[in-house]
């Protein structure tokens, strides 16, 4: 799938350039676009000047954004400012917490000339961690038993509802394992203060972890889907290594979810093949590309490029297969620059025509 020539005139914005121990997907999305033949300019939208992808030279220009929680007005006026400098033709948001803001701002974004390819608000709400049980029952998908806690007093009822150990999960991020009832409350408090209520308690299942990245056309169809088995998992449960698999059963499982949701845009499914019965269980649905999406592109399905083309209203033929056996391992490198460059970005909130500026010093 090659990008058309006219892409060379375009500016596309991508968010989420941090690449630390919990890497954001932006850098992998940009790399996929470029490997797919995209020759336009990439504008990185960042929330913090220390996001490592900035300094690795992932984007051509970088602009700091106000947090979505600051309200849509400041968010929009910042985007309007950026468009005056570099007219953005499309935007690929990659962070869970900002997706809803972009969905709601779709009409204003269109007026600015910015295209997106995102789910509807209803689709977005349906995949929430707090609604996973409901979704499972509706689409005939196995999910681990779970309860939503809106009050710490509910914790004492857990033993009657599920077996230990359990996972204590925030509605956006973070999950901790609690082996006993008395371990739940500290995790509950920590997650409540970071991500608010409800806190999700999910039955812990033992098994092999698989992740799927997929792109839905918004009409129940699946433009592509690539699954990988996690080969290397960090203490935080992040997959830092994985290999592409091709299991027809997992593929059917993923497509049933895409069809049920009529999902529009990218998503990541976190799936577990349970030791107890060898069946696939859905653990989470993340409403964006994952940080490992480059693996999918290298395995033959460049989903970020396909999403961009769909955003432009092009017809995109669905991918039929991918190359199983392609694997990735994530590694960190130290990047050095003069502090003045960091100062430029943090004081002015932008760094343009990065080019050679962010080529790491030797």
């Amino acid at each position, binding site marked *: 799938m090659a990008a058309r020539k006219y892409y060379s005139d375009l500016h596309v914005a991508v968010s989420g350039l941090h690449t630390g121990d919990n890497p954001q997907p932006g850098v992998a999305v940009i790399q996929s676009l470029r490997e797919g033949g995209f020759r336009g300019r990439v504008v990185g939208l960042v929330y913090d000047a220390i996001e490592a992808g900035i300094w690795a030279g992932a984007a051509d220009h970088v602009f700091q954004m106000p947090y979505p929680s600051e309200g849509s007005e400041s968010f929009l006026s910042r985007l309007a400012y950026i468009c005056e400098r570099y007219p953005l033709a499309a935007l690929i948001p990659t962070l869970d917490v900002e997706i809803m803001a972009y969905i709601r701002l779709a009409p204003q974004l269109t007026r600015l000339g910015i295209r997106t390819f995102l789910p509807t608000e209803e689709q977005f709400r349906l995949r929430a961690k707090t609604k996973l049980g409901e979704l499972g029952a509706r689409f005939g998908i196995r999910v681990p038993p779970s309860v939503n806690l809106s009050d710490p007093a509910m914790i004492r009822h857990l033993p009657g509802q599920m077996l230990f150990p359990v996972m204590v999960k925030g509605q956006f991020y973070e999950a901790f394992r609690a082996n006993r009832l008395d371990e739940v409350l500290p995790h509950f408090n920590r997650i409540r203060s970071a991500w608010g209520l409800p806190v999700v308690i999910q039955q812990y299942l033992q098994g*092999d972890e*698989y992740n799927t990245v997929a792109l839905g056309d918004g009409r129940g169809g699946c433009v592509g889907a690539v699954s*990988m*088995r996690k*080969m290397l998992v960090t203490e935080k449960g992040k997959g830092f290594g*994985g*290999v*592409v*698999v*091709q*299991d*027809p059963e997992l593929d059917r499982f993923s497509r049933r979810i895409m069809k049920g949701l009529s999902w529009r845009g990218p998503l990541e499914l976190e799936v577990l*093949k349970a030791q107890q019965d060898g069946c696939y269980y859905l653990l989470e649905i993340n409403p964006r590309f994952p940080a490992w999406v480059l693996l999918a592109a290298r395995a033959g399905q460049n989903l970020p490029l396909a999403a961009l083309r769909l955003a432009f209203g092009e017809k995109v033929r669905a991918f039929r297969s991918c190359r*199983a*056996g392609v694997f990735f391992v994530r590694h960190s490198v130290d990047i050095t620059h003069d502090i003045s460059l960091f100062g430029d970005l943090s004081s002015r909130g932008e760094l343009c025509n990065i080019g050679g500026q962010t080529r790491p010093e030797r």
Partner: protein
Amino acid sequence: MRGLALAETGFVFDPVSGFGYNLNLTAVTLLRKLQEGDSIEKILKFMREEYEADSNEMERDLEQFLNRLSDYGLLNWEKA
């Protein structure tokens, strides 16, 4: 038998589960024969001709190997 990818080095990759296994050279030879569709009897005959070992012991070894492949979900096999 699943579409296993078998390398000369003895590394086998199962594209369905994503797991990899290391085999010794004898196991690689036997797995190749299974992939080519050879019957158990034919493989046993080959082993008797190729290897110097007690015939019963070879039969037990082959059975053990097939059981192992079956345990890993790589082969549907049950002793007749």
